[in-house]
């Protein structure tokens, strides 16, 4: 029988994968994708906890998380495009100055 624990463990595994991606990758787009993995890991927890309590609030929070993720992706990708235009690279280590 699948219990709440299964979903919490899955969520923890996905969150760890996402963090590892943010820490280990040297590509701005992959870093943004890893953040999306982490947001989705948390979404799994919200839906599973909502199911456990028999309330729809978990699903509504997931709806808001998705909206914020969309806003974050739009602004993040706009920044990536602006940075790429200046430096012709996607490595986050190339952008260490506050001004150029």
């Amino acid at each position, binding site marked *: *029988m*699948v*219990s*709440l*624990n*299964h*979903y919490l463990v*899955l969520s*923890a*595994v*996905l*969150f*760890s*994968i*996402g*963090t*590892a*991606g943010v*820490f*280990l*990758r*040297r*590509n701005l*787009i*992959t870093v943004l*994708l*890893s953040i999306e*993995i982490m947001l*989705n890991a948390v979404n*799994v927890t919200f*839906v599973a906890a909502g*199911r*456990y309590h*028999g*309330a*729809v609030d978990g*699903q*509504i929070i*997931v*709806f*808001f998380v*998705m*909206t914020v*993720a*969309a*806003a974050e*992706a*739009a*602004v993040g*990708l*706009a*920044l*990536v495009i*602006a940075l*790429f*235009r200046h430096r012709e690279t*996607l*490595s986050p*280590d190339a952008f*260490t100055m506050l001004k150029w």
Partner: protein
Amino acid sequence: MQQTVFFLFAALAILASIGVVAQRNPMHSVLLLIVSFAGLSGLYIQLDAPFTAVTQIIIYAGAIMVLFLFVVMLLNAHTEDDVVPVTLGPHAMKLGAVFSAILALELAYALSGLIPTPFPTDPAVTSAVSNVATIGTVLFTTYSFAFEATSILILVAMVGAVVIAGKPRSEH
């Protein structure tokens, strides 16, 4: 049966997510992330949340990931630079690996104390959480302020993205 489906979708989501992080080609990363989202959406159906499952596919896979794909194609940056920059030193990656391992261990420790908590099997609960009409009612009454705030957030993000990514103004 339920267990088999859970492990199938969970394995799909985890393997695809590992692929996202391990791939060197951003295009493959984005496509693998869509596969991962499909797996998660299957799990949402298992959790009696069909509305969330469908929004996961439509909003995440359909809108956000397509935005990522556009940017990957637009920048035409196929692979990551192989050289680790000297400014960071040779141990920077190892430090990152250690930090993410510590976080994973912390999560494992936190979850090891859980007692098994099965989901309620009462059909009334199942139909309550899977009812889209209930979700709509709660969203537009209890959470109406948050809903309006989100709409403003989206508007600000849209204008901000256009301003940031737009053509730089000519020097004068």
